[in-house]
């Protein structure tokens, strides 16, 4: 009996837990209660059963001995023993045997109406006792085995239900994760999140976030489509939290601790609502149970998700809260990530814009200075030179010394004009503005050739002028690359290729100089090569890329590709 009790009690306990979880999670095992086996009966009932079956057996035996005489007084008592030990266990079986022995001795064994017995009666009774004991023991053992089997069956059923639930939960979380990972906009993330929880976890799902000014804003709601109420504070409902609220969204926001309400009695509902309007809405929803879980990421409470059970009538338990917390934590991380991503993208964009403005401003400034030098300084120097020469013509110097002085002055003025021309060319070659990239580069290459460089130039841009920003950027990169050749490569052998491939402009500057280790000149590396990151930034701003290949002793190759489309988009 102990063993039966024990084995039977465990599944029953499990069952109880499962059933309450079922109501929470909407996972149906098999409806629960009706088939729940009763494995323990009170001792009083069990022993009474033995007594009554024995009494019944006595009555029937008395009856049939009156009708047909005494032949087998023990038969019906065997039945009583079997029934007692099946339904009551070994103890009641033994009681039934004892009663049977007493009453048969008294009523049926000679001498009847007496507990005295003859030797044969005694023998007969002894045989009955032995047989009955055997039957009682066997019956009890059979019963015990039967119950163990029954318990095992229940356990198996429960285990299967548990596995199914775990699978569903996993699938749910998987879906939630995929959804959360997919979105890069936090509002979308939270809206999808709310939609996902209905009806799987809740009949209503409300998402609130804290705003920078401390207010709470509802950013997403989801509800059962067949919901009784249509009135829930829609998106963008906004209110300031009650700092003294004993519980509810305000408190969860403040403390970062989740709350669970297995039941929601009226006073709790009143406290949960913020204001009369909200209370009216809440009454319409008629919540049965609720959970408020904080959206916490990096120790910051971003908001809350409120899960409400209404129509479904389920009551949330610790298991539901655990799932809700897992889900909410993921949502918070996803929201945090989208915010970080957006901030990163924004600052990247700002940086890009800044680089762009800087480059444009720099170019503008160069152009301005260049034209200033061209239009003023050079003209004045030129005029001075001509005036000096005219003066010399009008008043020829008397001495060779005076003539030399004058000639030196003329030469200085001429040199100023030449220097001005060189400055203008370096700052912002007018060729670039007037004739475009191909001509400006050709001129640059020709100047280097005039200095004795062995430099090739292949150009295939076609007739059309490129967007000014692209022309400037590519010219600067080529200029910078050739300056690097002059400064570092210790060679005057180089090649420049410029061509258009569909909608991409391709520039390549190669030299056969001493090369360098590109790893050694990353940003912040040798100050001498500050030009390289600058080149990359210039090109990246236009949506292109700039590859610098080099190795010590192997020359250097700068390859640039710029899409025309991106450049047009950047045109200010």
């Amino acid at each position: 009996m102990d063993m039966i009790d024990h084995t039977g009690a465990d599944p029953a306990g499990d069952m109880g837990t499962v059933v309450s979880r079922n109501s929470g999670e909407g996972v149906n095992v098999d409806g629960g209660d009706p088939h729940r086996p009763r494995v323990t009966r009170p001792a009083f009932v069990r022993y009474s059963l033995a007594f009554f079956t024995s009494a019944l057996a006595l009555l029937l035996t008395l009856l049939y001995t009156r009708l047909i005489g005494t032949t087998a007084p023990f038969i019906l008592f065997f039945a009583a023993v079997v029934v007692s030990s099946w339904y009551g266990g070994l103890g009641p079986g033994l009681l039934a045997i004892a009663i049977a022995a007493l009453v048969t001795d008294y009523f049926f064994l000679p001498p009847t109406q007496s507990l005295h017995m003859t030797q044969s009666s005694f023998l007969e009774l002894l045989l009955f006792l032995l047989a009955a004991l055997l039957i009682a023991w066997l019956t009890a053992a059979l019963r015990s085995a039967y119950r163990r089997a029954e318990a095992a069956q229940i356990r198996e059923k429960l285990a299967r239900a548990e596995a199914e639930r775990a699978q569903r939960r996993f699938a749910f979380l998987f879906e939630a994760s995929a959804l959360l990972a997919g979105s890069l906009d936090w509002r979308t993330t939270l809206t999808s999140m709310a939609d996902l929880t209905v009806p799987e976890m809740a009949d209503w799902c409300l998402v609130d976030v804290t705003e920078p000014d401390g207010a709470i804003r509802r950013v997403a709601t989801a509800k059962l489509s067949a919901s009784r109420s249509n009135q829930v504070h829609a998106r963008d409902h906004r209110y300031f939290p009650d700092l003294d609220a004993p519980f509810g969204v305000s408190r969860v926001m403040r403390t970062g601790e989740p709350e669970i309400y297995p039941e929601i009695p009226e006073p709790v509902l009143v406290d949960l609502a913020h204001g009369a309007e909200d209370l009216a809405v809440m009454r319409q929803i008629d919540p049965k149970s609720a959970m408020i879980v904080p959206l916490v990421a990096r120790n910051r409470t971003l908001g809350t998700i409120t899960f409400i059970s209404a129509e479904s009538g389920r009551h949330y338990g610790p298991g539901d809260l655990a799932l809700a917390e897992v889900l909410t934590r993921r949502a918070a991380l996803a929201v945090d990530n989208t915010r970080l991503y957006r901030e990163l993208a924004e600052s990247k964009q700002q940086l890009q814009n800044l680089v762009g403005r800087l480059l444009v401003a720099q170019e503008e400034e160069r152009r301005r200075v260049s034209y200033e030098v061209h239009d003023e300084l050079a003209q004045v120097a030129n005029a001075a030179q001509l005036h000096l020469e005219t003066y010399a013509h009008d008043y020829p110097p008397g001495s060779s010394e005076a003539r030399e002085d004058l000639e030196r002055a003329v030469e200085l003025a001429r040199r100023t004009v030449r220097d001005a021309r060189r400055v203008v060319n370096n700052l912002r070659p007018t060729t670039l503005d007037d004739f475009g990239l191909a001509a400006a580069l050709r001129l640059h290459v020709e100047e280097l050739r005039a200095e004795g460089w062995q430099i090739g130039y292949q150009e295939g841009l076609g007739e059309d002028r490129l967007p000014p920003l692209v022309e400037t950027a590519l010219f600067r990169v080529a200029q910078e690359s050739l300056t690097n050749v002059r400064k570092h490569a210790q060679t005057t052998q180089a090649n420049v290729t410029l061509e258009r491939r569909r909608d991409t402009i391709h520039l390549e500057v190669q030299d056969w100089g001493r090369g360098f280790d590109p790893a050694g000149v990353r940003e912040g590396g040798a100050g001498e090569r500050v030009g390289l990151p600058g080149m990359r930034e210039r090109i990246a701003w236009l949506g292109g890329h700039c590859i610098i290949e080099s190795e010590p002793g192997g020359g250097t190759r700068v390859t640039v590709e710029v899409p025309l489309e991106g450049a047009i988009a950047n045109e200010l």
Partner: protein
Amino acid sequence: MNSETRPRAGAFRPARVVIVDDHDLARAGLRGVLAREEGLEVVGEAANGQEAIALCGKLRPDLVLMDVRMPEMDGLAATQAIKQECPATSVIIVTMYENPDYLIQALKAGAAGYVLKGATRHEITTAVRQVIGGESPLKPELAAQLLRRIASTASPRQGPPVEPLTPREYEVLRLLAEGKTNSEIAFSLSISLSTVKFHIENIISKLGASDRTQAAVRAIELGLLTSPTQ
């Protein structure tokens, strides 16, 4: 074609020159140089392209010294307009840059040649005298290179009817377009220098050009050099 009745400047009368530059100092510098030259007379000055066109229409000078970068209208556009109205007026571009791209543009606009900003008094007066005297102010190699590039890019178009050239004039024109100097032409054709000068005067006149350089440019544009049957 050449509606000018006035004889070409030379021994009989001084060449009339107009200076165009937006910079007062630059104009004054050039005026100082040219005004003292024998046989040259600075008849007017303009500060931009628009003024230059108006002035040239009125004065019909033999030569214009033209700055390139000017407000209102730049030197090249002004040159083009002046050549339209006064084909006999030669234009010398005064430029900061010896860049062939600029020079080709200048030649196409109608310039006879250029002087560099920063050129000496001597260089300036030489260029002016060469243009007036029917010689090229351009170095022969540079002239040849520029004319080749003009020939390679310009599609020969049907120009206004020209007075037919004699075979001898064609020979001279061909050598002229190759950038040859007068003495080289005289040597190649085994004729005297004065005969060459005479032919060149005729060619310039027949092509309705103002100077030697523009005669070559015009010949290229008319396709005279590409079709040997002419």
